[in-house]
């Protein structure tokens, strides 16, 4: 991805209120070709509202959305077809077969009869449902329904894909398949906005992270940048036996004590980098600290989120 490339989809200073509750507060974001941008935040943070506004299903109270640099109203149908929405709910027809579902959305997206046939087959192939194409959707497992939901969103090969918590309630195997398909789709040139509250998913497949909390975009950038915004550094978590020396860990260079529970024999030390591990362990031995176990912890999005907001990603925003 080239940073110089123009955004496929852009939200500029959008705000939205539901009654007295401010759901989105002056949020700006963009997605470019080949990029997966994670919209990461706890439940109720404003992710679905943001996606609904980006999909032009919801009008913002202020601000605007540009698709390929243009407002949707300049070409409602043409620009609308640049978007593929995969909503959190299964927006499918339960009694129709997988093929019929995909076919309907393909035709509604303006594909000709012949094109729709080719695209439907490809979409079902891509999500691994070709063999179940003629089975009714209601007979599918939860994971297969999610895959079909994705197939309906990508059948017309939209340059922009909007995914709203696509892996909620999905088993591990289906999740892997879904994430692989989404990464593959972005690698083929699409811009993807991936809304989730699963930090691990964002870390795995996304190129850029948009941290959202209580309707505000609190951090934005590539993974390393956002993690570093939280100020977190690598940690070593120790389990020890016996007494700690006077001055505890103060004599170890380049290390900061985060927290120690003497009664449990546990301590957490922050380092500048993982390259210090051997040096830290050697220093501990010099100080006569009897280390019986240790774990290394890389700083992650969750740490950054806690550092930036004071609460965890799993917390519900009220």
């Amino acid at each position, binding site marked *: 991805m080239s940073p110089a490339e123009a955004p496929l989809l852009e939200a500029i200073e959008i705000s939205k209120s539901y009654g007295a509750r401010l759901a989105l507060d002056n949020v700006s974001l963009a997605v470019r070709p080949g990029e997966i941008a994670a919209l990461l935040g706890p439940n109720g943070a404003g992710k679905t509202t943001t996606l609904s506004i980006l999909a032009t299903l919801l009008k913002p109270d202020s601000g605007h959305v540009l698709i390929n640099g243009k407002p949707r109203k300049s070409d409602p149908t043409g620009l609308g077809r640049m978007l593929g929405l995969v909503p959190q709910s299964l927006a499918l027809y339960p009694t129709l077969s997988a093929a019929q579902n995909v076919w309907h959305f393909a035709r509604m997206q303006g594909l000709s009869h012949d094109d729709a046939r080719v695209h439907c087959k490809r979409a079902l192939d891509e999500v691994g449902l070709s063999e179940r194409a003629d089975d009714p959707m209601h007979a599918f497992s939860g994971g297969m329904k999610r895959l079909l939901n994705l197939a309906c*969103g990508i059948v017309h090969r939209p340059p922009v894909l909007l995914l709203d918590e696509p892996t909620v309630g999905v088993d591990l195997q289906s999740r892997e398949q879904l994430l692989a398909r989404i990464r593959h789709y972005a690698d083929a040139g699409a811009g993807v906005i991936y809304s989730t509250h699963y930090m691990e998913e964002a870390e795995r497949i996304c190129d850029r992270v948009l941290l959202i909390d209580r309707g505000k975009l609190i951090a934005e950038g590539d993974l390393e940048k956002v993690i570093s915004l939280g100020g977190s550094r690598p940690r070593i978590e120790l389990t020890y036996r016996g007494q700690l020396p006077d001055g505890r860990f103060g004599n170890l260079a380049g290390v900061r004590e985060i927290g120690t529970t003497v009664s449990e024999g546990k301590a957490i030390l922050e380092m500048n980098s993982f390259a210090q591990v051997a040096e830290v362990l050697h220093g501990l031995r010099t100080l006569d600290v009897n280390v019986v176990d240790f774990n290394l912890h890389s700083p992650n999005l969750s740490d950054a989120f806690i550092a930036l907001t004071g609460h965890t990603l799993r917390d519900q925003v009220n």
Partner: protein
Amino acid sequence: MLRAIWLTAQNEARLLVKDPTVLFMLLFAPVVIITVAGYSLGSLYGGAANSFRLPLVDLDHGKVAQGVIEALRREHGVALEMLDDPDEARRLASRRDRTPVAIVIPEGTSVAVAAGGQPRLILFVDPVRRVEVNALELRIDELCRRITEQARTAAQSQIESFGEAPAITLPGDIGFVEKPAIEGEAVTVNAFDQYVPGFGITFLLIGMMLGIALTLFDERDWGTLKRLQVSGAPLTGLLLGKLFARFIVGIAQMIVLFAVGWALFGISLGRNPLALIIPTVGISFAAAALALVVASIATAHDSVPSLGVTISISMAAIGGCWWPLDFEPGWMRELARWLPTTWTMQAFNDLMIRNQAPSAALRPLAATIGIGMIFLLAGLFRFLSLDD
């Protein structure tokens, strides 16, 4: 076990209170149906009968005619209208509400009675309103019997006053003969000619409610409507597409019903069976549009069936699909003028029973389409405002 029963019952009560539509329908639906049926069928159970308008043409101008007219003027619930033209009286009986019968007293009736003959009043009757015709005929029959009896009593007194029988004749019986209000048609009707279109309309309405209103709710719940909107498809287009499909299904449903009615019950298909498409198109359109209104005002998926079925049944009943419109009180007949069911039943009756030309269905079609358009605009406006 008891705890589970008690807690479940408590929760059900909470759910019920939280859904005012269902609560409302539990009370509203039976009250509506009771009101419609009670007012419509009240006269059958001895309640106050509805008044009839009775056109009468006196071509006799004799004592018998005078007796009949005076007796009819005293009849409760009959508004006598004196006319000069038998054709006009006949026309009124074929078309106007609360006018199922018109009477013509033929010239020479009084003379014939005095001569011991058995003259017959002519009753022009509308076969569509057979039940009302029968009710009025019972009263006219009784009235004729009374007049005959009075005439005979008077003649008998006259004979007795002479002491011995003079050479005079006792008056004859007055009776009546039915003639169809529309020339050339039968005076009786196959009951299925009424019930096939009547119940066809009822189930068409119910089918639309379930087919359109429920599935629109489903699509809102599933999120498919929203997803399709992203593609650039306008919501209005999506709604009209849904209505159009059900509109076609409604027409097919009525065609099948008429075919079954004809094959099994020998219903009349009128002069031109294809003309039955005209009112069918109208009611299918209006019913589809009405279902959109129901979908837009129902607050929950579960309230759609009760709301839709109550509206369907009420409209069918008030519109004369189940019993003759003339059974209903004035305010209900006035309300019926604003229902598509009323106009559609009128068109089916005209085509199937009164055997009129297809053009007779055009005015009812215009009225039905007009009412349907109001439903459609209201439903679209409400649905689009919900979407905003």
